[in-house]
C-alpha cells in the first residue's frame, strides 16, 4: 500500500513542457527540468536502470533553428544541437569535407537511434565511448551553450571531464557545435574507425579519429588524432600527431602514431574488453584511422563508414 501511494505521488509530481524556443527551455532547466530531444540516451538509460527518468522534463525536439547544418563565417561548420546522426551521415558537406564525422554518425546504434538521436544529446551525454567525439575534437569542436545569462563557447576538450560529466551547468542548453575550417596548406582527409564486434547496435570497444593534411609533395603537414573508449574522456594524442608530421603518411608513420596512442591510453577492463586488449587494439585502430585519413587526403575513395572496410590495414 505504501508502495502504491509513493508511486502515485511520484507520478503526480512528474511534469513535462514542450519548449518552442531556447529561452523557454533554459527557463525550465533553471527551474530544475532536464532537456529531452531524441530520448535515445535519457529514456533508454532509464529503461536500463542507469538512472530514473527525471521528474521534470522539457521537450526541446521542436525548437526551430537547432536542426541546421550550416557554414560559419570562418569557413567552418555549425551543427545545430538537434541535428540527428541520420542527417549527419547523409549531409553533402559532412561527407565531402568532414567524412570522419560521417563515419562515426553512420555506426551509432540502429537506424532508429540515428533517426532520433541528436548530436547535442550525444555531446552532452559525455560518454568516453561516443563515436562522434573523436572527429569533433580533431576538427576543433566548440560547444555553444546558452544559459540564463547568455551564451558562452567551450572547447569540447574543456567540456568533457569524465564519463557522464561535463563543465556545463545544469541550466545551460547546448545549441550547436562548431567545427573549424579544414586545415589550410594542402589537401586534408579525415576518418573515424572503431573496434566493433558487430557492425550495428554496437558501442566502441576502442575508437580513433584522425585528420591529416598533406602538402603538395605528399608530406604530412598537419595531423590531429583523438582516441575513444581509452580514457575517462575522449582526448587528442599529441605524440601520435607529432609522429605523423613531416612523414610520408605511410604504414610506418601510421604505426608509430598507433604506438603513441597505445602508450597514451588509460583504458579500463569491462565486459566489452580488458584494459590490455584495449591498449593493444588502440595501436591497431589508430593506425587504421590514420591510414584511412591519408587515403582520403590523397583523393582516394573510402566508403562511409570506414570501420566496415579497414580490416587488415
Amino acid at each position, binding site marked *: 500500500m505504501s508502495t502504491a501511494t509513493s508511486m502515485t505521488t511520484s*507520478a503526480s509530481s*512528474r511534469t*513535462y513542457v514542450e519548449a518552442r524556443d531556447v529561452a523557454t527551455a533554459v527557463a525550465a532547466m533553471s527551474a530544475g527540468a532536464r532537456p529531452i530531444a531524441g*530520448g535515445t540516451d535519457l*529514456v533508454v538509460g532509464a*529503461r536500463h536502470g542507469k538512472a530514473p527518468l527525471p521528474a521534470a522534463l522539457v521537450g526541446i525536439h521542436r525548437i526551430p533553428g537547432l536542426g541546421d547544418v550550416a557554414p560559419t563565417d570562418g569557413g567552418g561548420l555549425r551543427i545545430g544541437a538537434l541535428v540527428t546522426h541520420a542527417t549527419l551521415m547523409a549531409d553533402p558537406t559532412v561527407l565531402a569535407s568532414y567524412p570522419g564525422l560521417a563515419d562515426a554518425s553512420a555506426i551509432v546504434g540502429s537506424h*532508429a*537511434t540515428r533517426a*532520433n538521436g541528436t548530436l547535442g544529446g550525444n555531446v552532452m551525454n559525455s560518454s568516453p565511448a561516443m563515436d562522434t567525439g573523436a572527429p569533433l575534437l580533431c576538427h576543433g569542436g566548440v560547444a555553444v551553450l546558452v544559459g540564463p545569462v547568455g551564451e558562452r563557447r567551450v572547447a569540447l576538450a574543456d567540456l568533457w571531464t569524465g564519463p557522464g560529466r561535463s563543465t556545463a551547468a545544469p541550466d545551460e542548453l547546448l545549441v550547436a557545435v562548431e567545427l573549424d575550417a579544414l586545415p589550410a596548406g594542402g589537401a586534408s582527409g579525415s576518418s573515424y574507425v572503431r573496434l566493433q564486434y558487430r557492425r550495428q*547496435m554496437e558501442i566502441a570497444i576502442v575508437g580513433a579519429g584522425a585528420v591529416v593534411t598533406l602538402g603538395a609533395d605528399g608530406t604530412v603537414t598537419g595531423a590531429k588524432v583523438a582516441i575513444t573508449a581509452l580514457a575517462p574522456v575522449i582526448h587528442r594524442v599529441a605524440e601520435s600527431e607529432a609522429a605523423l608530421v613531416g612523414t610520408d603518411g605511410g604504414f610506418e608513420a601510421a604505426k608509430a602514431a598507433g604506438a603513441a596512442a597505445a602508450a597514451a591510453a588509460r583504458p579500463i577492463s569491462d565486459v566489452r574488453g580488458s584494459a590490455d586488449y584495449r591498449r593493444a587494439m588502440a595501436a591497431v585502430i589508430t593506425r587504421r584511422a590514420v591510414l584511412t585519413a591519408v587515403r582520403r587526403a590523397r583523393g582516394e575513395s573510402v566508403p562511409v563508414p570506414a570501420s566496415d572496410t579497414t580490416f587488415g590495414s
Partner: protein
Amino acid sequence: MAVDITLSVNGVPYPLTVDPHASLLHTVRGDVGLTGSKEGCDDSECGACMMLVDGRPVNSCSYLAVQADGSDVTTVEGLSDGETLAPLQEAFLTRGGVQCGFCTPGMLVSATALLDRSPDPSEDEIRTAVSGNLCRCTGYDGIVKAIAAVAAERAAQG
C-alpha cells in the same frame, strides 16, 4: 501531472491524457488500443516496438508519448489498405519472412522506413536497416529476400 496530447495514429486523431513518462508504445497499445506493435526488450535493442513518427523509425518503447504530441504515428496496422495487405506484408508471407510473428510488426515498419528513404537498397543496406530488429526464428534470410523483392518489383514498375 498528466498531460493532454493528440496523437494521429494511422491517420486517425486520438485526444489522450497521458503520464509524462508513459512510452509511446504503452500509450498506443493501452490507450489507443492498437496492439500490433510489440514489447520485447523495452530498451531499444530488439525493435519489436518500431513505429514511424513523422516518417522516422522510432523504438516506441523508449520514446515518450508526450514528445509525439501532434505527430503522425504509423504502426503496423497502418501499412495495409483495410484487408488488403501491403506488398511488404505479402512478400514476408510468401518468402518465409514470418515464423512466430513477434518481430514481424517491427520488421515491417523498419522495412517501410528503409524503402521510403532508399527505394533501391543493396542487400547490405537491407541488412543494416533491420539490424535493430531481432528475429530468433527465421534466420533473417526470408526477411531480407522479401524486402529485396518488393524493392525490385517497385523498380520494375518504374
